[in-house]
C-alpha cells in the first residue's frame, strides 16, 4: 500500500494492533489481555456445563429450579425469535416480488459500480459457471460490474487456468473481469478466504479502479462465496438500499443466504442445517443493531479502503470485516438488512459420513467466530471514542451469543435431566424430582411448536421440485425438522465447544474450505 493510501486510512485503523488476530501477535500487557480474552469463552462454557453437573450433585434443588427457569426462558426466546423469522419471511417474500428496477428509477445510480469478488480454491467448474451465469442473468447493467475471480496459488495451476477459462467465457459480459491469483505463504497471512479477498481487493484497485479513476465512493463491493448465485434483482435491491440508507458509507449490506442451490440433492441433515443457518440470518435481518456481516455481503469500497481492506490473518473474515469497520469508525457503522436472498450451496459430500464431517467442520469454523469477541473486547478497551454503553452492549450481547450457542442445547437436552440422575437421595424422593422431567419435556414440546413454523417457512423457500425428484420428498422435508434437537447438540453446541476449547488452549484454527457440490 502506498503512503497516499495510508493517509486515507482512518486514524484508529492505523494502530499496529488494529488487525490483531491472536495473542501471539502482541506483547506485554496487551498480549496478556488478549490471551485472557481468548480463554474467557471456553472457560465460561465449560464452567457452565461443569457447574450444572456439580450443582445437580450437591445442590440438586437449586439446579432443578434453574433448569425450570431456563426451560421457560427457552420457550419465550423461541417465541421471540420466531416472531422475527415470521416477520422477515413476509418481508423477504415482499422484496422478492418487488420490481427493484422500477424502484431505483427515481434514484441517480448511473455513476456507481459494483465490484463483485469471488474468492475460490478448488471448487469444480460447474459451481463457478453457475455463479457467473447467475451474474450474467442479473437485471442490472452488466457494464457497471467489475468481476474478480480470485484464485489461490495453493490450489495449483489448474485453478488459475480455470479462472482464465472463465474469463474467456464470461469476460465480455461485464464491464471488467479480473483474474487474480493469491500467492501462497505471504508473511502474516493465514490461508483462506480472508487473505485471498484481501489480495483480490488490492489487485483490482491497482488493475482497474485506480487506472480508470473510479471514485472509491462510487463502488459497492460485494464479497461472495464462490457458490453464491444472485437473484436477478440483487444489485437493484442493493443499490436502492445503499442510496436510501441514512449513512451508506458507514453501512454494510447483508442479504439472506438461502442454501438452496443443491437442496433437492442434499440429505435431510444438510437441509436442516442449511435452513437453520438461513433462519438465524432471517432473525438477524430483523435486529440489524445486533448483527454483524455473515458470509456473502456488500459494503462500499471507500469503507474498505479506509481500513486497509480487512484482515488476511483470521478464519472468520466475513464477520471480522464488520468489526474492523465498526471499531475504526468509532462505533459509527451498522448492518443494513436487505431481506433479499442470495442462493448458496448446502453442505454435502458424496457419503453420509462425509456430509456429517463436512457439516461439523463448517460449523466449527463458523463458531470459531468467537475469535471476533476477543478482538472487539480488546479494542473496546482501547478505543474510548466508541460510546461506553455501546461497547458494553455489544460485548455482552456477542458474549452471550457465543456462550448460549455452546451451552444452551446441552443444558436443554442433556443437563436438564442431570439432577434426576445425579441428585441426592432427598431430592429423588421429592415431587420436584418426578415433576422436573415432565415439566421440561412439556416446555420443550411447546418450544418445538416453533419447528412447525420452521417447516412451513422452509417449504415455502424451497426451489421448485426437479422432475426427477419424487413428491414424497416434500413429506421428508416437512418432517426433517424433528432432527433439530440432535443437530443443535452435534452441529452447533459441540463444534462450538470444540472451537472455544481450541481457542482457550491457544490451539488456533486455520481456515477450512467447505467442499462445494461434488459429483
Amino acid at each position: 500500500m502506498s503512503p497516499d493510501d495510508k493517509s486515507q486510512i482512518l486514524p484508529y485503523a492505523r494502530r499496529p494492533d488494529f488487525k490483531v488476530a491472536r495473542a501471539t501477535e502482541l506483547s506485554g500487557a496487551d498480549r496478556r489481555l488478549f490471551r485472557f480474552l481468548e480463554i474467557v469463552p471456553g472457560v465460561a462454557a465449560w464452567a457452565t456445563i461443569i457447574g450444572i453437573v456439580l450443582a445437580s450433585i450437591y445442590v440438586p434443588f437449586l439446579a432443578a429450579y434453574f433448569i425450570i427457569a431456563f426451560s421457560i426462558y427457552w420457550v419465550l426466546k423461541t417465541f421471540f425469535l420466531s416472531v422475527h423469522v415470521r416477520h422477515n419471511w413476509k418481508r423477504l417474500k415482499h422484496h422478492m416480488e418487488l420490481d427493484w428496477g422500477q424502484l431505483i428509477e427515481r434514484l441517480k445510480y448511473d455513476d456507481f459500480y459494483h465490484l463483485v469478488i469471488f474468492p475460490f480454491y478448488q471448487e469444480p467448474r460447474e459451481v463457478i459457471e453457475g455463479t457467473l451465469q447467475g451474474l450474467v442473468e442479473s437485471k442490472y447493467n452488466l457494464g457497471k460490474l467489475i468481476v474478480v475471480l480470485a484464485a489461490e496459488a495453493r490450489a495449483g495451476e489448474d485453478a488459475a487456468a480455470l479462472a482464465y477459462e472463465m474469463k474467456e467465457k464470461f469476460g465480455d459480459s461485464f464491464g471488467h473481469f479480473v483474474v487474480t491469483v493469491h500467492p501462497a505463504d505471504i508473511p502474516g497471512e493465514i490461508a483462506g478466504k480472508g487473505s485471498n479477498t484481501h489480495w483480490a481487493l488490492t489487485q483490482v484497485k491497482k488493475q482497474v479502479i485506480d487506472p480508470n479513476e473510479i471514485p472509491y465512493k462510487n463502488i459497492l463491493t460485494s464479497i461472495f462465496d464462490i457458490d453464491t448465485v444472485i437473484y436477478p434483482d440483487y444489485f437493484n435491491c442493493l443499490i436502492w438500499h445503499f442510496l436510501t440508507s441514512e449513512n451508506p458509507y458507514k453501512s454494510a449490506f447483508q442479504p439472506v443466504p438461502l442454501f438452496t442451490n443443491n437442496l433437492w440433492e442434499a440429505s435431510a441433515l444438510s437441509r436442516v442445517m442449511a435452513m437453520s443457518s438461513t433462519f438465524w440470518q432471517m432473525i438477524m435481518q430483523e435486529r440489524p443493531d445486533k448483527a454483524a456481516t455473515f458470509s456473502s455481503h456488500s459494503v462500499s469500497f471507500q469503507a474498505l479502503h479506509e481500513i486497509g481492506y480487512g484482515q488476511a490473518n483470521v478464519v472468520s473474515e466475513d464477520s471480522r470485516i464488520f468489526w474492523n469497520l465498526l471499531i475504526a469508525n468509532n462505533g459509527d457503522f451498522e448492518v443494513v438488512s436487505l431481506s433479499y436472498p442470495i442462493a448458496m450451496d448446502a453442505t454435502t459430500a458424496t457419503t453420509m459420513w462425509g456430509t456429517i464431517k463436512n457439516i461439523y467442520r463448517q460449523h466449527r469454523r463458523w463458531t470459531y467466530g468467537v475469535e471476533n469477541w476477543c478482538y472487539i473486547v480488546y479494542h473496546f478497551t482501547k478505543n474510548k471514542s466508541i460510546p461506553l454503553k455501546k461497547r458494553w452492549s455489544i460485548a455482552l450481547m456477542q458474549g452471550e451469543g457465543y456462550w448460549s450457542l455452546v451451552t444452551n442445547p446441552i443444558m436443554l437436552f442433556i443437563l436438564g435431566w442431570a439432577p434426576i440422575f445425579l441428585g441426592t437421595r432427598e431430592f429423588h424422593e421429592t415431587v420436584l424430582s418426578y415433576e422436573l422431567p415432565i415439566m421440561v419435556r412439556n416446555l420443550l414440546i411447546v418450544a418445538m411448536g416453533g419447528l412447525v413454523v420452521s417447516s412451513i417457512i422452509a417449504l415455502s423457500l424451497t426451489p421448485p421440485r426437479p422432475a426427477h425428484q419424487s413428491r414424497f420428498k416434500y413429506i421428508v422435508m416437512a418432517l426433517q425438522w424433528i432432527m433439530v434437537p440432535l443437530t443443535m447438540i452435534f452441529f452447533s453446541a459441540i463444534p462450538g465447544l470444540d472451537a472455544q476449547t481450541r481457542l482457550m488452549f491457544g490451539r488456533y484454527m486455520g481456515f477450512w474450505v467447505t467442499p462445494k457440490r461434488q459429483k
Partner: protein
Amino acid sequence: MPTEPKIASLSYKRRQWLFYLLVVIFLITLPAMIFYTTGYRISFESEGTSIVTTGGIYITTDNLNVDVYLGEDQIERPRLFRSAYYIQNIEIGKHRVVVQRPDLQTWVKDLPIDPHIVVEVAAFNMPLIPQVRPITEYITATGTAVYFDVATTTDLFTKSSTTLLVYATSSLATSTFAINEEFLFVESLFSSTSTSSLSVFEQLSDSLERFRFSTTSDALDDEEIATTTEPEIIRGGIRLVERDREIFAVWQEGINNIPFYFCLTDRGSTSTAKRYGQHVADAVQRLSVSTTSPIIVDRDRLCRSEIKLNHLGQDVYYYNFFPNNADLILLHLEDGLYVTEIDDRGWQNTQVLYPGENFTVVVENDLIYILEDGYYFEVITEIELP
C-alpha cells in the same frame, strides 16, 4: 408505482415491547411453575380457593396392561410398553393402591402420603392359575413333551395350566421319541438337592444339634463344618437369614443404596404404627435396642437393617429370591409355593405361585422347577399379555 417497500423491518420499539412483555410472562410463570413442580396445587374443593400441598406415588408393576387404582379412582395407563406409573396430585394422608388384572392375583397396599414427597413402591401380580412348562423324559421330533400311559380321562394339569402343546399317549413305546436332555438335567438337580421333609427351621435346629454333639466329642473336619454352615442367599445387597423360626431379609450394604422399603420417614412410634402398621412399629421398637441389627438414622429417615418375612405362620421348606428379582422372595410353605414381598409397609402381599402339599422345588439359573407325583415342571413367572 411504489417508491419503497411496503413492509418495514420490525421496529426497535416493537421488539422492545415484545421483549418486556415476555420478561413479564417469565416473571409470572417461573414462580408458578416452581410451586407446581414442588407439589403445591390450588384447591377449589373447600368453600374458598386455597393452596394445598400434595405428594405422589411412583409404582412399578411386573406386568403390562394391569389396572392401577388409587382408592376408587383408576389411574390412566402410561405410554406404550411402560410398566411404571407416576401418580401425582395426591392429598396428604393414607391412600390405598390396588394393582389388578382378571387373570392375576390382586396386589394391595396402604401407603402414607407426605407433602412434597413421592412414595416409591413395587407391585407384583402372580397368575391366578399357575402357568407351567412340562418337562418330560421323551419329546417328539418337534420338541413337544410326551406323556406315556395316559388314559383319555386323565387330567395331567389339575391345578395348573400350560399354553404349550403336550403329546399324551396310552402307549408305553418310546422308540419313536427322543430323549429330552433337559429332563436329565432337571432330574439330576432334584437328585442332588436335599429334599428333606423337615422344614428349614427343623433342619437348622437339627444341624445345630449335630454341631453341638460333634464339638463336644471330637473336632470337626472341614467338610463337616461346611455342611453345617448356613447357605448364603444374597442378592442385590440383601441376605436371607433364618432366625428364631423366622426368615429375615437383612440389608448388608451401606445406607446410600438401601432399598426404599427398609426406610420410614416418621420416627414417632405411635405415628409409625398408624402410618405403616403395628408390625412395623414393633420391629422398629425391637431394632432400636438391638446391637446386631440396629436402626440407622439417615437425616430425615429411619432405616431398618432387616425386615421379617411373612410366612403365613407355616413351616418353610425352602426359600430363595424370586427369579431375577431382589425385592420378592419365594417361599415353599406347607400348602404351596408362595411369593412374598420384602416391603412390609402396610403389610406384605403374599401370593401363591403353585399350590399343593406334596411337591419339591429347586431353583436353578433363575428358573423354578417342581417335582410332583413324578412329573417335572418349570413354573412360568413371566405372564404373557392377555
